């Protein structure tokens, strides 16, 4: 695995600070030329969304993210790699997922981060439920987010 540091993988309820995580990852290193961070945030869908609820499969979530990380490290030369995925109730504006890739060169950092997100979307065992702003959950208020075909297509473009 062409990764000069262990990938950092965390599945947590707590909020995270993307900038802090990126700073920690590059701290004291002088072999890194490029750091890409991707933060996925909870949108309010034009004011209709009260919150997202994210269910996950404990154990498998970490294992699957680790497999995706190993895949990324096999494809690109990375200095370090971090994935944080939250679960539980998430308010609009809050971060859901963080991917950080660090490499000597920008191409590897960009491609690996994009690949990780495409794969997490389709392979990591998380499910989003939307809670609507008004109305009760029982009547109109709550619905599981459907998987998007465009996400499958995005993951498939990387081949195997």
């Amino acid at each position, binding site marked *: 695995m062409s990764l000069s540091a262990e990938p950092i993988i965390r599945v947590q309820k707590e909020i995270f600070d993307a900038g802090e995580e990126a700073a920690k990852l590059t701290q004291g290193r002088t072999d890194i030329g490029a750091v890409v961070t991707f933060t*996925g945030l909870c949108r309010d869908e034009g004011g209709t969304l009260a919150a997202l609820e*994210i*269910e*996950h*499969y404990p*154990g*498998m979530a970490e*294992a*699957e993210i680790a*497999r995706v990380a190993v895949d990324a490290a096999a494809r690109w030369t990375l200095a370090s790699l971090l994935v944080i*995925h939250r679960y539980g109730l998430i308010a609009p504006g809050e971060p*859901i*997922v963080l991917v950080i890739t660090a490499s000597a060169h920008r191409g590897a950092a960009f491609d690996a981060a994009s690949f990780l*997100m495409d794969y*997490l*979307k*389709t*392979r*990591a*065992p*998380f*499910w*989003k*439920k939307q809670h609507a702003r008004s109305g009760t959950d029982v009547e109109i208020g709550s619905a*599981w*987010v*459907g*998987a*998007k075909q465009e*996400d499958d297509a995005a993951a498939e473009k990387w081949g195997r």
Partner: protein
Amino acid sequence: MKALYFAWVRERIGKTDEHISPPEGVATVSDLIDWLSDQGEGYAAAFENKKTIRAAIDHAHVKHDASIATAREIAFFPPMTGG
């Protein structure tokens, strides 16, 4: 064998997990889905669109034709929507 259910599969079945003892002859994930579908209304609803159901054995994705012979934990869930 422990079975786990997530998202709307969990909601329809009405439980997060349970111990199951499928009979001889239930060899694959597909067989197990068919057997579970007969365990009640909730199960039938959860598995009515069999093709959309994803499965994992011992924390790894598997296809419907995978053997369940050595499985300690098997999970059923809709397509993932994380990230």
